[in-house]
């Protein structure tokens, strides 16, 4: 196997819970266009994500990967086309936007933890104020998720006192505390020291094993191969290729894909 896509964990992935629904549409993107000023970033994107899918979006920088997943929870606004998340269409209606955001978790490249709050407060803020969960219950759930990402002992610290890898695991736990149906990952390991990438990928894998619907923009091709059920390749704001990971890596169709893979898998 080439170096860039070697397995991220040595163990076998537990695929028991990982099944893709045939009826439950999680995200439906139809003819989506987006412009930044005059720059056409997303051009006619069509993508249907079924419940339980684990999709990795790859592509060169500036290809619109991040913009696409940021459209899914309306951090970016699209100008043309339709976007449905769990059956709710995203429009400028603020109520619907909040409704979608409650069900869609997002993990950012730079973690974006709230530096003035402790880890525990970071985790419980949204459950308490958005979902109306009582504080004690929210804290209990938060502890459970912190244990799941293996840092329960950091609960009372501030984000600034944690390493990058720990912060990103907290960020994942923070999203999970809202019990999202879908998780979006926007280059979650790109800002990490190489030694810390693995601990974050481990958490993402265990999340996949629990059956979560995930869309990950990432350059971790090993993760794509081990976990994804589909790899999508974007260039110049368009989806130019998609396939199952094995096929994608062994028989890329498009010239641009071949070039990209040859660059990153040496």
């Amino acid at each position: 196997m080439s170096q860039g896509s070697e397995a991220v964990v040595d163990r076998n992935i537990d695929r028991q819970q990982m099944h893709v629904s045939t009826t439950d549409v999680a995200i439906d993107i139809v003819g989506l266009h987006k412009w930044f000023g005059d720059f056409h970033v997303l051009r006619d994107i069509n993508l249907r994500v079924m419940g339980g899918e684990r999709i990795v979006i790859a592509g060169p920088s500036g290809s619109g990967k991040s913009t696409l997943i940021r459209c899914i929870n309306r951090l970016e606004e699209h100008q043309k086309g339709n976007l449905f998340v769990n059956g709710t269409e995203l429009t400028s209606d603020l109520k619907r936007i909040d409704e979608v955001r409650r069900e869609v978790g997002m993990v950012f490249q730079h973690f974006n933890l709230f530096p003035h709050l402790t880890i525990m407060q970071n985790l419980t803020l949204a459950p308490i104020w958005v979902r109306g969960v009582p504080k004690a219950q929210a804290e209990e759930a938060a502890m459970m998720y912190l244990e799941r990402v293996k840092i329960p002992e950091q609960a009372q610290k501030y984000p600034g006192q944690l390493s990058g890898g720990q912060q990103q695991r907290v960020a994942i736990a923070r999203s999970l505390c809202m019990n999202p149906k879908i998780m979006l990952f926007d280059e979650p390991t790109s800002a990490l020291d190489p030694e810390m990438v693995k601990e974050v990928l481990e958490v993402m894998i265990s999340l996949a094993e629990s059956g979560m619907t995930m869309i990950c923009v990432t350059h971790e091709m090993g993760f794509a191969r081990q976990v994804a059920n589909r790899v999508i390749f974007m260039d110049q704001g368009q989806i130019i290729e998609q396939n199952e990971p094995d096929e994608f890596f062994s028989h890329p169709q498009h010239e641009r894909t071949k070039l990209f893979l040859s660059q990153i898998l040496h």
Partner: protein
Amino acid sequence: MTDTAFVRSEILPSQPAPRRESGLVAWLRKNLFATASDTILTILGVLFIFWALPPLYGFVIGNAVPPGGTVEQCRVENVGACWAYIASEIEFFVYGFYPMAEYWRPNTVFAMLVLLIVPLLWPKAPFKRTNAVLFFLVFPVISVILLSGGMFGLRFVPTEQWGGLLVTLIISIVGICLSLPIGILLALGRQSKLPVIKTLCIGFIELIRAVPLITILFMASIMLPLFMPQGTTVDKLLRAVVGVTLFASAYMAEVVRGGLQAIPRGQYEAGASLGLGYWQRMYFIILPQALKHVIPGIVNNFISLFKDTSLVYIVGMKDLLEAVKTKNDAIEWASPTQSVTGYLFAAMVYWVFCFSMSRYSLNMERRLDTGHKR
């Protein structure tokens, strides 16, 4: 290959840091006589102290007439500060023309102020929420009733009779407590995506900032009644308070905007992606961080607001400075150092309040630092 690299085979244990030079001589050499120019500055500084300190001491303490002294003592040649004058007029400086028999009313308000504000500002004091409700909602109502009277059998005291430190404190405390929230709303409004709100906020801020406070106070006291329906009057003190508050809010808005701009976009996005609404995002995530960044600027505004209250004499209010100015002409205390002592006293009072605010803000900055500046 030449052997140029030294490879350590075992990790060195950490060693204690080298001891710093200590002792008086080392300290002197490091802080006062490190270089030739330092030495010159030190000598000049010492000379200045020797030149300035004795006369200052003589004026303030040595030759001064202590409280309780007589006006004759204040009239001898080369006399120092006439503290006897301050002591005998202190009631006017604190209460203005407030009727003497009713002094217990402002005194009660002062006592309540101290009792409520100390635990509010002291981080470890319990019952913060109750405390805040009492201070921001209950205290103002009780204070107005107590001070102006006219109900509950209290004699009515029109605001024209209020004066001195009482007025200075009323205007500055109301101004401080209201200008921050109004300033925050204006700053948020200025960043709003809704064009109407945005334009209104920008218009207000730019209009107020471009006009001197004196003009606003004049407008409030002379122009405002012209626009009001015949027969309605707005209290003079209230007009001054509103003028000062609006003026400070415009400045505050710009300080807060500076703080808002320092918050990375990721913080807004993280809040949004968790489903928090706009006001929740602002209240829990953005403002705590933004305000923390601009504490020095906010307190700067508070301090300048406190000192700006001395301008209300323009609309006929007798604040602390104006009260001092009035008594400086009092014949019964006419003496060479009467005015100087009066102004020195006023300056000291302003200094005590402003310096406390400054120290408290430094303290707060340290306390709120959660060490995210890695």
